[in-house]
């Protein structure tokens, strides 16, 4: 065996070696039960938690009423409040002091006081005041309910002030609240949150998993052995990423299933466009993870880098805050993040009935990102221990 040198392995990319790495990664993934469970469990748990928990438009807020008036108008207002979804008439107070107390103690979110002579004042056209006190500790929680209050009032007035009293119907008063929702007429937060969660869950799991997978090789010393064998950087990189693309696909199926079954999120557009965007997005995140793993010295650093990338992705992509609400410089950063584009693709396809022509402007920036990061990662991946 000494004198006859084998013909020699080609230094060019070899699918066989790629397969060798992929098989190895799958076996390791199979053995690592906890990680495996996390990869399927995390999307479900987060989806349930955030999907049900995050609600920017809370309803059934506890409300207390103190009525000094017993006219039909006050009764109509109270019953209208009761039938609306926003207010839950929990208590009836006997005095203003008790009303204050209920609010102070946080037993109710709203307190409504109908002054003495409300009905007669109204009949005289004196525009009596309806006193509403809101616990505005969290403005977001009460904002929409306050808006609804005005509408409820208007409709009650329009319904009761009829016939000879019609002239008393208030001309559209100083209504400062307008709730104007497109694409989501019922104002269901889930329709917006759930597609966004798909992007953030994928970002987090994909980046962390790959970043750790490669760093772990270095930490355990197996990288030295791998480097001593004839295998190319692209083979290692693709071999490590391929299994995770599959994991990402499983996560997407879990999330999509939950979105449809649990939250009733529609799928109005072209699913193929969504799948296409998803594959690009998943691969882009994996490439980021791989790049981090070539920079990090240990798993802790890899984790820190992942979070460093994850935070702006969440805050500046339009997931948490409206993208157009950010200053121009922040929008520039946001445009550079794959999550920003992916969110537009998902929301577009699911809620706005988008197809390929509409999502293309967001597909190509992700492709550019993927290409740039991959090139950087392969360049950074060292074939020596230097």
């Amino acid at each position, binding site marked *: *065996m*000494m004198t006859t*040198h*084998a013909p*020699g*392995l080609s*230094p060019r990319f*070899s699918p*066989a*070696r790629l*397969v*060798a*790495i992929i*098989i*190895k990664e799958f*076996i*390791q993934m199979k*053995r*690592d039960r906890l990680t495996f469970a996390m990869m399927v469990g995390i999307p479900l748990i987060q989806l349930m938690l955030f999907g049900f928990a995050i609600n920017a438009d809370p309803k059934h807020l506890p409300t207390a009423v103190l009525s000094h008036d017993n006219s039909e108008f006050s009764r109509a207002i109270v019953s209208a409040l009761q039938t609306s979804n926003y207010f839950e008439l929990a208590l009836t107070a006997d005095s203003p002091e008790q009303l204050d107390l209920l609010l102070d103690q946080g037993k109710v979110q709203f307190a409504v006081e109908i002054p003495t002579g409300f009905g007669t004042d109204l009949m005289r056209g004196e525009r009596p005041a309806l006193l509403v006190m809101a616990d505005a500790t969290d403005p977001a929680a009460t904002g929409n309910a306050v808006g609804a209050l005005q509408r409820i009032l208007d409709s009650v007035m329009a319904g009761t002030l009829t016939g000879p009293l019609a002239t008393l119907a208030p001309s559209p008063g100083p209504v400062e609240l307008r709730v104007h929702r497109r694409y989501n007429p019922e104002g269901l937060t889930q329709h917006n949150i759930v597609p966004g969660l798909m992007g953030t869950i994928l970002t987090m799991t994909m980046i962390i998993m790959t970043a750790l997978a490669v760093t772990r090789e270095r930490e*355990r*010393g*197996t*990288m*030295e*052995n791998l*480097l*001593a*064998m*004839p*295998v190319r950087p692209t083979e290692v990189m693709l071999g490590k990423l391929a299994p995770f693309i599959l994991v990402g696909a499983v996560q997407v199926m879990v999330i999509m299933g939950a979105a449809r079954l649990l939250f009733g999120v529609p799928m109005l557009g072209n699913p193929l466009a969504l799948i296409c965007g998803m594959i690009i997005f998943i691969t882009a995140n994996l490439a980021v993870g791989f790049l981090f793993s070539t920079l990090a010295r240990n798993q802790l650093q890899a984790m820190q880098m992942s979070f460093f990338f994850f935070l702006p992705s969440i805050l500046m992509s339009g997931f948490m805050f409206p993208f157009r609400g950010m200053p121009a410089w922040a929008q520039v950063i946001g445009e550079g993040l794959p999550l920003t584009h992916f969110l537009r693709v998902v929301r577009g396809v699911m809620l706005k009935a988008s197809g390929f022509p509409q999502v293309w402007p967001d597909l190509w920036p992700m492709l550019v990102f993927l290409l740039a990061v991959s090139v950087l990662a392969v360049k950074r991946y060292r*074939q*020596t*221990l*230097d």
Partner: protein
Amino acid sequence: MTGSDPAIAIDVRGLTKRFGDRAVVDNVDLRVGKGRIHGFLGPNGSGKTTTIRMLCGLLVPDAGEGTCLGFDIRRDAWAIKQRVGYMTQKFSLYEDLTIKENLEFVARLYALADRPRRVTAALDRLGLAHRRDQLAGTLSGGWKQRLALAACILHEPALLLLDEPTAGVDPKARREFWDEIHALAADGMTVLVSTHYMDEAERCHRIAYLAYGRLLADGTVEEVVAGSGLSTWHVSGPPDRIAALDRALRGQKGVSMIAPFGNTLHVSGPDAVSLDASVAGFQGQAELDWRRGDPTLEDAFIHLMGSVPDNFQKPAGAGGHV
């Protein structure tokens, strides 16, 4: 391939590697004949691992040149990697893979045509067959070492680079391991093996001694011992008398080393004349039996180590095993 002597497996000159401003390997020349077992000795941090890594393309030398199996160590790392089996000092196969899965992974990377047969052959050769489905992480030191060796010889390399393969392995497993190394060499494989054990050094065809990154000796065991130029007296007697003599001889002119071995004291020095002059005054003492002895390989190494300045002195810290 470059046109080099086909009987030489490793031929490097002036090999140098610096980490920061420290020369971890300093101007090392090394020639290893084909089919030979070449021992690589030296204290911790002497640059053995770094040298081995440069030979198999894991590190790029800062200076120096040469060939490994006829391939340039700077340009042909890819070709060298295919023909070299490298066993790392720390176990570097996958602990969450079984023995068989590890070997299959390696076989796939080398694109071995008859993978099942090769894997089975390697399992049988190293007695791993009955443990084939055990996770590597659950193996004891001796079994891990066998697995690592099996993985390195799977592709039938022309050169084996073994970095302290028997560290932390029991004597019986060590003995079996060395029998295997000799069998592989008999088949024509060249072996460069680093070790701290003197008995292992003596099982090598030739040895090279590295200290502080410099090659201090290279040759057969006999040549290295003779090359040290040491003269040695063996003194035996009652323990208290030996202990007293040990104290009395310390610092005497011409005495460079004193080492007790049970009831015998080894007294050595680089210059026979001044050594003899210094011990002459003690030779008349009762109960002590003085005889001329041969220095051991260990004596020779310790003497060699003391003969060079420590280049790690200036920047504080001895550094890890590099």
